[in-house]
Structures are given as structure tokens and as C-alpha cells.
């Protein structure tokens, strides 16, 4: 099993902690000069998403985690699994609900997503930063309000709900930012 020593620690390094894959967010060396050096590490558990901290005595080792980010095309869901495919090799991957829980509402069939694989299994999915979706329900709002001074909730075709300006109507397509869950503009 490959290991990393504290001297190799840096942001983005993937390692195993209690059997779960984690990624280093920030690694700070603490070298008192007259004492033992330590590494103060802030890391994210890639399964739970929780951010944790630990301080490692310098020279300690952690196990490397087989974690890779890969671009896959979202195909469809059968309700139990979300299916993705590598468009080059046609290899297919099944993601469980926990891997897509937070982003299900941004998944559009045929879209390319970044899928994080741990030992070959999808553990998280990042949809494209901007996607275009149709509004399937929103309050008709006030006619003639084009200044966009107010806002109203609108339900999109995937079920996502975002705040949109008053002038945007049912049937129109809008561009949204999937990271923030925010309306950007109407799609042309």
C-alpha cells in the first residue's frame, strides 16, 4: 500500500483516514526551531464532506487513497442508481444516491460532469458550473416589470427551485449557476 509521509503533504493530496478517502485542504508546517516539528492539517472527508483538523508529528505516514477526478457523461437514473459513462471508452459507472444527493437537481442527461472515483466507485459528482433549464412553474408576476427589482421562486424542469426576476415566465429557459444555485440570465 502506497503511503505519504508528512513531508509530502500539500493541498489536494488524497489519503485514507479511518478507511475513508480524504483530501488535504491546507497543510501548515509548525517548526518551532528548538522543538519537534508538526504538520497542522485541515482536510475534507470526501464521503461525508466534513472538514476536519488533525496535527501530525512530522515523519508520520498516511495511506494513499485511490481517488481520481474524471469527466463522465450523465446518462439517466433508474431511481436507485445514477448512470454515467466515459465517452471515450464507453465504460459505465453507477453512482448511489449519496454520491449525487446534493446535486441531483442539477443533473441533465448528456451533460458532462466531474465524477470523483474512489477505488473505481463514484463518491461525488460535480455538475457543470452553468446549466440551462426550463421554468416549469412560477408566479405570473407583474406585467411590465422589466427592471428586475424584485424576485420570485421558480421551479425548473429538474425540480430545482431558484429565485428569478419577476419578468421571467413559465416556459422560458434560464441559465443558472449550479455552485450557488443562483439565476444568472435568461437563455437566448
Amino acid at each position, binding site marked *: 500500500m502506497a503511503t505519504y509521509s508528512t513531508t509530502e503533504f500539500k493541498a489536494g493530496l488524497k489519503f485514507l483516514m479511518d478507511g475513508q478517502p480524504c483530501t488535504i485542504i491546507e497543510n501548515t508546517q509548525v517548526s518551532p526551531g528548538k522543538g519537534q516539528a508538526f504538520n497542522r492539517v485541515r482536510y475534507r472527508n470526501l464521503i461525508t464532506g466534513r472538514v476536519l483538523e488533525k*496535527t501530525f*508529528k512530522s515523519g508520520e505516514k498516511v495511506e494513499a487513497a485511490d481517488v481520481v477526478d474524471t469527466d463522465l457523461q450523465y446518462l439517466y437514473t433508474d431511481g436507485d442508481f445514477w448512470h454515467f459513462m466515459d465517452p471515450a471508452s464507453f465504460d459505465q459507472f453507477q453512482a448511489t444516491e449519496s454520491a449525487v444527493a446534493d446535486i441531483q437537481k442539477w443533473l441533465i442527461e448528456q451533460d458532462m460532469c466531474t465524477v470523483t472515483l474512489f477505488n473505481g466507485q463514484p463518491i461525488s459528482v460535480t455538475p457543470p458550473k452553468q446549466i440551462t433549464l426550463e421554468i416549469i412553474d412560477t408566479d405570473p408576476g407583474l406585467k411590465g416589470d422589466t427592471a428586475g427589482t424584485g424576485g420570485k421562486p421558480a421551479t425548473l424542469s429538474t425540480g430545482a427551485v431558484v429565485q428569478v426576476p419577476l419578468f421571467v415566465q413559465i416556459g422560458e429557459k434560464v441559465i443558472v449557476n449550479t455552485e450557488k444555485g443562483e439565476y444568472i440570465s435568461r437563455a437566448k
Partner: protein
Amino acid sequence: MKRSLLLKRSQLFQQLRTFFYARSVIEVDTPMLSVAGAPDCHLSSLTTQVQVPGEREPQPYYLHTSPEYPMKRLLCEGSGDIFYLGKVFRDGDLSPRHQVEFMMLEWYRIGFSMQDLIEEVVVLLHHVLNVPPNLSPPEINAKRTSTTVDHTLRVEQLTYQQAFAKYANISNIFEASASQCQACLSAYGVPEIVGVAMEDKGLWEQLVLTEVVEPQLGREGENLAITVLSHYPASQAALAQISSDNPLTSERFEVFVKGMELANGYHELREASFYQRRFEASLNERVQQGFSPVALDERLLTTLTQTPLPDCSGVALGVDRLFALQQGFDDIQQGIAFGLLES
């Protein structure tokens, strides 16, 4: 780096030099290359190869981790008060507070006790830090004459033991157990520590110092202050004298501003035999911990044998940290033309 910042850095160097020239402390430029290295277990010297005429193979040389040994040889030879302002090298150290190559100010004062030198460090820090960094000189002058703003920093001086009592609620750190130190770390919300044996009291004590005590030092609310810790345990004396009134403590001090160590000073050991013993102890620890041994500074030992070090105190101060504090930077690299990863 912007010219305005280069100028401020250059002004700091000038300010430091002026401080010592005004006190008749002379500047020395001791060699950065040496056939000997620092045996300290926690320091890692860079090494290089020098083609010495007459030798078949290139000879290994160390880049100095501090100018201490050659400066002490000069002191033995009668240099009087001296200072060094220049680069030193410590392998592997890179963080917001560290660069592998960094500016060190080190000086020695003949006849100074530890307390005398602490007071001089405090005066120097006032010179450098009490000027609000964002005011240009004319504004400062205007302010001083019109409103006489007091920029004096609060100075706090504690012994090592008092600091643990005040900031970590451990009344006697010398008698505290490893489990007391562990309890303190969790009481102060310090994240889990990995790789330290439960019974290794020395390391748990160090962690209480670095994770609990030090971050609280040198602060007065949001403002900068100066905290001096003195009388470090005899086991951490390095090359400082053991206190004459307490065999458990040494005449070693450190100075902190905004939770960061700025300076480390000693009332210096004088006799060659003590140096020999401390060097060998460090070297043993080094080998035990699995680090490569280093060549000891035999020339320093020979010089000390012939003429013991005059009674003096010396201190080393991190100039990049000082500049970062003066400018309000979080990473010393912001005040350096090119850091290691940009070199």
C-alpha cells in the same frame, strides 16, 4: 514586488543597522559556508560541495542555520559587541512563518545579563513596530507634533512556568504529567494530535506551548503587544547558561508578537567543556531519532578551550517575521521579493 514595498524593506534594514551603529555594535559578515553544521536535532542544514584546491574530491560544506558559531569565535578573539544581518538557511521549512532562506538579525552584547538583553530587544521592537505602517513619514511627524499619539506597545514578561499558569491553566508545568497536558489540549479545543506516544510528556508539553500558550502571546485585543518568556526548562537550554538560582531553568528567553516567535536569546555558555557536552547530547539525540549526524564545529571548541567566551548575551531575531508584522502581512512571503517557490 512593488517599489514602495522594496523601499520599506530597505528602510527596515537601514533602521536596524542604525540602531546598532548608534550603540557601537559593529556589523560582521561571518561565512555562510562551514565545514561544521548545527547538531540540533530539529535543525536541518543544507549542504553543498566545494572544490577546494589540492583536494581530489569536492568537499562537503554546510550552509549556516545561524551565524552563532563563527560569531562566538570572533567574540572569543576580542571582537566586542557584534551583529549580523543576513541570510541563513534551514532545510524543509516552508510555511506562512518560514522560508528555507531567510533574513536573520543576530547580535551579542558583552557584559549583558539575560534581562539587559531582553530590555534591548524590547527597545528595538518599539523602534520598528510602533510606527503605524500605513502612514508616510510626513503624516507621522504631523501626528506626533499635533496630537502626541502614544504608540507604545504593551510589554509583558513572564517565566516559562508563569506562561503555562496564565495561558494554559497549568500551575506547575515542571511537575505536570503527560495526561494533564493532553487534558489541557482538549480543554482548549486543539484538534487531535497524531503520532505522539501517550507518555511522551516532553512532546505534550511542547504542544501545549505551541498550540495553546504561544497563540495567545503578544496580543492586546486586536493590537500588537510584546510578550517575553524567560527561564525555559534546563532541558531546553540549548547553549544558554543554567540559572544560578534554579537548576531546573535556563537563562534563555523568547520574544513573541501576535502569537509568533520573533526572537530567541541566551545568556551564553562560556566554557568549552559545556559546549562539548551540549553538542554531544544533541548529536546523540539526532542519531537516536534517525537523522544523519553532522560534523561538529571543532574550530569553535578549540577557540573556546584557549579563551572562554566573554560574559555576554546573544539573541537571534527573524527579520522577515518582523517586516511582516510591521506591514500587517499574514505570510512572510508577502514581504520578500521572491520566496522559495518563486526563486
